């Protein structure tokens, strides 16, 4: 009897509450949700990458001009200026302003078209810009390379944007928000500038957000903030060479942090060490082009893999060369008629993808080259 009353009252209350729902407010967000160009399947290497304030189209080849009329879909009700479908000369990047449906909020995107048909896989890390994040405030490095006509391309990504969510809450007394407090930062390298990666604590909130540790990382691909955090790293860019890669070369320095912490058991390690690997994988014909952060070297699209071994995973204060050979996996071989993607990944904690590592582990990397088979 009593339970029947509860059921009845629950129903009445729920009904009553539903009737209290007010009219929906106008949308306040101002995002570019999708971007496309006519015949994109034919002329683009990959789907356009859409970041927080940046859209990059990668063209397969130069067609004689940079006149393009990109089309955008936006948050419901939002507007964009210049309008979607407006033809412009993208010899230099263009700015687009998206305004929310309620008119209160807006965001400016930089839209660029880059042509990257040269198979140059040598990275010097000489160029980094400071990203000035607004919400939340933050200042961190983003590496870029210049194409032949001086366009910035952001082949190397980091998880700095993810760290920035909590960066302000993680400052030690006396520290201020500047690129050096982030996990990945440009510093002096073996030649000119290089990259420093540091495994960082993410504090009490990091655990709640599913990332109890932030290994410093650097990878070829895109970073798109997601939760669980591991889904944010999207490995891979189009592979333009007509031969298979044979080795990954570069220079490093490494110092492991003191206390190795296992957040995801079991761990294969008892002390921290660094990681470097490269993967050549087939471009999927549908769905996601990239390899997700959870690939664990088990993705069926993998063709060839190079991964650092115990011999090189040493601690050293001196710049030390490494060269890791590629080996074919899954019984695959290189087929020049197929479309491939590649990624290169560095991490200051080898099990950083499992959030296992030692706070303070520091990896320096410079002069990285993906060596491609030059023989006929």
């Amino acid at each position, binding site marked *: 009897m009593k339970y029947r009353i*509860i059921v009845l009252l629950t129903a009445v209350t729920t009904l009553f509450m539903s009737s209290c729902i007010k009219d929906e407010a106008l949308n306040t967000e101002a995002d570019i949700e999708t971007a496309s160009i006519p015949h994109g399947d034919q002329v683009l290497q990959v789907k356009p990458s859409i970041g927080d304030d940046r859209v990059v189209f990668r063209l397969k080849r130069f067609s004689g001009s940079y006149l393009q009329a990109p089309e955008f879909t936006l948050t419901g009700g939002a507007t964009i200026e210049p309008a979607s479908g407006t033809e412009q000369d993208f010899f230099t990047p263009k700015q687009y302003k998206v305004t929310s449906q309620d008119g209160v909020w807006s965001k400016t995107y930089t839209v660029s078209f880059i042509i990257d048909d040269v198979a140059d896989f040598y990275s010097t890390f000489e160029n980094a810009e400071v990203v000035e994040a607004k919400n939340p405030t933050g200042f961190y490095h983003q590496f870029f390379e210049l194409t032949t006509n001086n366009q910035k391309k952001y082949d190397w990504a980091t998880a700095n944007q993810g760290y920035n969510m909590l960066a302000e809450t993680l400052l030690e007394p006396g520290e201020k928000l500047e690129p050096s407090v982030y996990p990945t930062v440009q510093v002096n390298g073996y030649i000119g500038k290089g990259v420093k990666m540091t495994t960082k604590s993410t504090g009490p909130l990091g655990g709640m957000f599913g990332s109890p540790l932030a290994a410093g990382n650097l990878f070829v691909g895109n970073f798109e903030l997601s939760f669980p955090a591991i889904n944010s790293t999207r490995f891979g860019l189009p592979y333009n060479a007509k031969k298979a890669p044979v080795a990954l070369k570069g220079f490093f320095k490494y110092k492991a942090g003191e206390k190795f912490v296992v957040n995801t058991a079991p761990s294969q390690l008892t002390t921290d060490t660094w990681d470097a690997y490269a993967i050549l994988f087939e471009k999927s014909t549908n769905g996601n082009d990239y390899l997700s952060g959870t690939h664990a070297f088990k993705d069926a699209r993998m063709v060839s893999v190079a991964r650092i071994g115990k011999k090189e995973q040493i601690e050293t204060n001196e710049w030390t060369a490494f060269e890791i050979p590629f080996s074919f996996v899954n019984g695959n071989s290189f087929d020049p008629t197929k479309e491939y993607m590649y990624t290169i990944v560095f991490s200051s904690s080898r099990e950083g993808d499992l959030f296992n590592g030692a706070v303070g582990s520091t990896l320096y990397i410079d002069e990285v080259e993906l060596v491609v088979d030059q023989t006929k």
Partner: protein
Amino acid sequence: MNRILYIVAVFFTVVTSAQAQERAGDKNTNFFNTNMDYGVQAHFSIGGSAPLGFPNTIRKIDSFNPGFKFGLEANATKWLDKKWGVRVGLRFEEKGMKTKAKVKNYLTEIVKDNSKVRGYYTGRVETNVRNTYLTAPVLAVYKLADTWNLYGGLYFSALLDNTFDGYVSDGYLRQDTPTGAKITFEEGSQAGYDFSDNVRKFQWGTQLGAEWKMNKHFKLLSDVTYGFNNIFEKDFSSIDFSMHNIYLNVGFGYSF
């Protein structure tokens, strides 16, 4: 479970002492045994901690579960004349609910220790409230008929124990502003929140109800309570609207 045992123990203590008092009062007449009714009652509550007028950020209530929230009260009614009386009491009560809602652009904060992330959340929110109060009602009682009493007045509550927590899932948080960094909660993953430490320790409100006497000793009763205060402390800013305790109680009582 311990809490329920605790409440039951207090209940029996009150009943026993009330009976003892009654027996003691046989010998002579005084304020406490003249035109005085002593009673004990039990009720269950259904209701919630809810905003007064839903903000437009709440888009849909997917489910609402009041749970089985229990209260026990001992009270004394002094009849001033044939119609009017004054009742004071003491009760232990649980107030709580579990809701699942869909929200859009809902300003919230995810806090742990001294770190917090603030932003606008769109997606699912599950909220779990369970507060235990020690409450003193002060009520006027009006005898409508031989078998019916109406009562109404104020109550004052002290928080004994509380939970106000939950999690967000299947949605995203825009950090700081609606155009801020977008943190997406995919694949049914969730981030928890816990505002238990921010629940106000003292509450007061109003109570209105009626009771029906089945016979000399037993009665059925029902009332509504409405809390005047926001259930959260004054400086709490993780939710940008105030929530009030609004409950319907249904129960039975025993008069000595």
